[in-house]
């Protein structure tokens, strides 16, 4: 094993061509992950609340809609967004944006069910007590239900975000220069050290994901809810 290939290309692995070119490597992986984590969190909350507030046909339609994103591979959704976004918006969407949209939709549809489950886990007396105090359904949700439900959901949010970091590697297929893409680039250029390169890249992902996992575990212990592996 010869790890000089890592030290020679370290800045390329971590930052891509930046500051002389576009940001890439591990930094771009973090940017992709943080953006889609935020967007998927918002989507998850909105759809989760919608699941909790709808009944009958509207509820079923929403379940089917979210089920679609959970049933198809992330890769297929990236293909779809890559193809459809320019048609929908009428201009070329950069690869980074495409990946963020795809990851947020997938993450959001998984999180919607966690949010829904969190809201449902509270005793119905909470809603009734809020109604008795004169709060409307939206107010009850805002001031009574969500403040109690969100800490319960936090571990599933963190687990979903760990999954997002790993899924961001799929940006590779549409040529976005994040960590996995940069790894194959260096591997193809150097030709001789694929083992060292992919071990190092795996280690980087491992450090990012396992630190989040430790955080999720600590939060789960603090709030007394078990973190479910995703």
């Amino acid at each position, binding site marked *: 094993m010869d790890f000089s290939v890592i030290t020679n290309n370290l800045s390329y692995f971590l930052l891509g061509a930046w500051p002389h070119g576009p940001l890439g490597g591990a930094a771009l992986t973090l940017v992709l992950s943080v953006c889609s984590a935020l967007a998927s969190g918002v989507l998850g909350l909105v759809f989760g609340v919608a699941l909790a507030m709808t009944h009958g046909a509207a509820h079923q339609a929403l379940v089917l809609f979210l089920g679609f994103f959970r049933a198809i591979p992330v890769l*297929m959704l990236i293909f779809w967004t890559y193809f459809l976004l320019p048609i929908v918006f009428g201009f070329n969407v950069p690869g980074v944006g495409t990946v963020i949209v795809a990851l947020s939709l997938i993450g959001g549809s998984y999180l919607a069910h966690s949010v829904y489950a969190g809201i449902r886990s509270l005793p119905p007396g909470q809603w009734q007590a809020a109604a008795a105090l004169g709060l409307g359904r939206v107010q009850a949700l805002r001031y009574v239900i969500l403040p109690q439900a969100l800490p319960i959901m936090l571990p599933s949010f963190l687990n979903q975000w760990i999954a997002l970091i790993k899924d961001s590697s799929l940006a590779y297929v549409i040529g976005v220069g994040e960590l996995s893409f940069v790894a194959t680039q260096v591997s193809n250029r150097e030709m001789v050290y694929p083992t060292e390169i*992919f071990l190092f890249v795996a280690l980087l992902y491992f450090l990012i994901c396992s630190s989040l996992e430790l955080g999720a575990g600590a939060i789960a212990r603090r709030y007394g809810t078990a973190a479910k592996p995703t």
Partner: protein
Amino acid sequence: MLDELLAPKYVGWLIDGFYVTLLLSALASAAATALGLLLCLARLAPTRWIAWPALAWLSLFRNTPLLVQLFFWYFGFSALLPQEVVVWLNAPHHWHLAFFGVRWPPFEYLAGFVGLTLFTAAFIAEEFRAGVRGVPAGQTVAARALGLRPWQVWRHVVIPQALRISLPPLLGQYMNAVKNSSLTMAIGLAELSYASRQVETETFKTFQAFGIATLLYIGTVAVIELAGQWLQRRNPTVGAAAR
């Protein structure tokens, strides 16, 4: 864009890809279930000399992307092997087992199978562990009181119940295996996503190519989902924690 159908030749490519997807995910799921059970037992072993390496193994495979793992097996691992082994692995081989001729698969199939199996096994092991935790401690104590040896307790009391509890999440992992098998296209395995991309490049009928592939994925996942519901209806103890 929508009114043109794909020529039969291209539909054939997609069907071939779908067949590879089904075969790869079925084989990897079966192997991952066996390996996942072993990993779960190792993780729960009373001696830390077994439990801690198992923990490290699980956390390593769960916390790195499948894509990077596939690249490692395809590019990285083969570079570690002696030259003769690599040549042998890449060369075609034929065996005759009873009535079947067995053909040695190309290297990307091997790497895809190993990568998908090891990744899935790490997740299945955790589902089994949750299942074992769902078996009440009284069951073990009672079995010991009946004079069963520790391995007999596992074999006859804990594992059967844990399997039943963890069946629904297990099916979820099989669905993930089907979806995750799409990543093997990155190492050149001609499965469904690879085929859809190929048809798209060849015909420019993006909507049809991706549409058919998407429907095939959704159909497969739906079949697994329905199988799970059917099992649970037929046998209500499936998925339920023992009392």
